[in-house]
């Protein structure tokens, strides 16, 4: 590696460095996903089913958020109901959408 190499490296990171950076970003995201309890998708689905008995809501209007702490974890469920002037939603029996899968 010559003087030239030094200059090149400073402007152009090595592929190994790129690999490390990509992994760090990706794994931070994937680990977060992994720490979610297994029951969340099912809980989401059942909550939606119960609400739909009374009010037509779309699946993305129910948000289940889980936050993990050392002492306690919290489960935050946010349900957005249609307002009085909202257009009438599609029939409630629609199949659950991809929001469940994640």
């Amino acid at each position, binding site marked *: 590696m010559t003087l030239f190499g030094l200059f090149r*490296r400073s402007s152009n990171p*090595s*592929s*190994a*460095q790129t*690999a*490390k950076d*990509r*992994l*760090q970003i*990706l*794994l931070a995201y*994937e*680990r977060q996903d*992994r720490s979610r309890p297994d029951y969340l998708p099912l809980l989401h689905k059942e909550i939606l089913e119960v609400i739909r008995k009374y009010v037509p809501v779309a699946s993305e209007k129910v948000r289940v958020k889980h936050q993990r702490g050392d002492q306690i974890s919290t489960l935050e469920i946010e349900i957005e109901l249609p307002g009085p002037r909202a257009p009438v939603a599609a029939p409630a029996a629609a199949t659950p959408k991809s929001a469940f899968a994640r």
Partner: protein
Amino acid sequence: MAKIIVITSGKGGVGKTTTTAALGAGLALRGKRTVVIDFDVGLRNLDMIMGCERRVVFDFINVIQGDAKLGQALIKDRRLENLSVLPTSQTRDKDALTREGVEKVLEELRNDFDYVICDSPAGIERGAHLAMYFADEAVVVTNPEVSSVRDSDRVLGLLSSKTRRAELGEDPVKPHLLLTRYDLGRVARGDMMKVEDILEILSIPLLGIIPESPTVLSASNVGTPVVLNESSNAGAAYADAVSRLMGEQIEMRVLGPERRGLLQRLRWRTA
């Protein structure tokens, strides 16, 4: 009571079976009663790497299904008296591997051996799950390559949640990182992630660094665990890993590529 160690990785082709054979033979060389088990139902390969493929009569699945006794299926190694191989089935259905069956066989082996080494199949399906389920320790085999590191991370997540120790709330499965196919030259050129980078990402203790080496292929060609070839850098690196697995504190060596002299080449050929 034996220690149960799973050799796992998620990704295929990173050296799980090579590692199983090498660590198993290395432990037996050090006087430990060791059995290596192939969990890759339908894709039996550990027998070839161990050089005992022509001696397979009964297998792991036969024992689980009660068609054979464990003693009939175990193959005693001809080079090392402390080493045995439990081959898997080449033909039967994967569903033949049951948790209860695996548990029964492992409990029986636990009494007769010091180390039970489980060679996991690639992936995260049934075979891989059962290979890790009863483990006390895990050797996560990783190549310095993005997809391998990612899969190792995933497997580490499974080890901490989908094993018996995790489910019973016992001490977690103890993970070890074994970095294989490491090439100092490519690391120096910036074409390969450094061992420090991978340790920083996965943050588990390092068991060893196995250099990229032509000896690994030639050892598998002849069915000799690579650790038995003392003149090879890969064999020496595996021997170091065996010492660490046994709890010894030895300095981490990063061995470079091999330059075999004529004499060594001749010696290896006649071995």
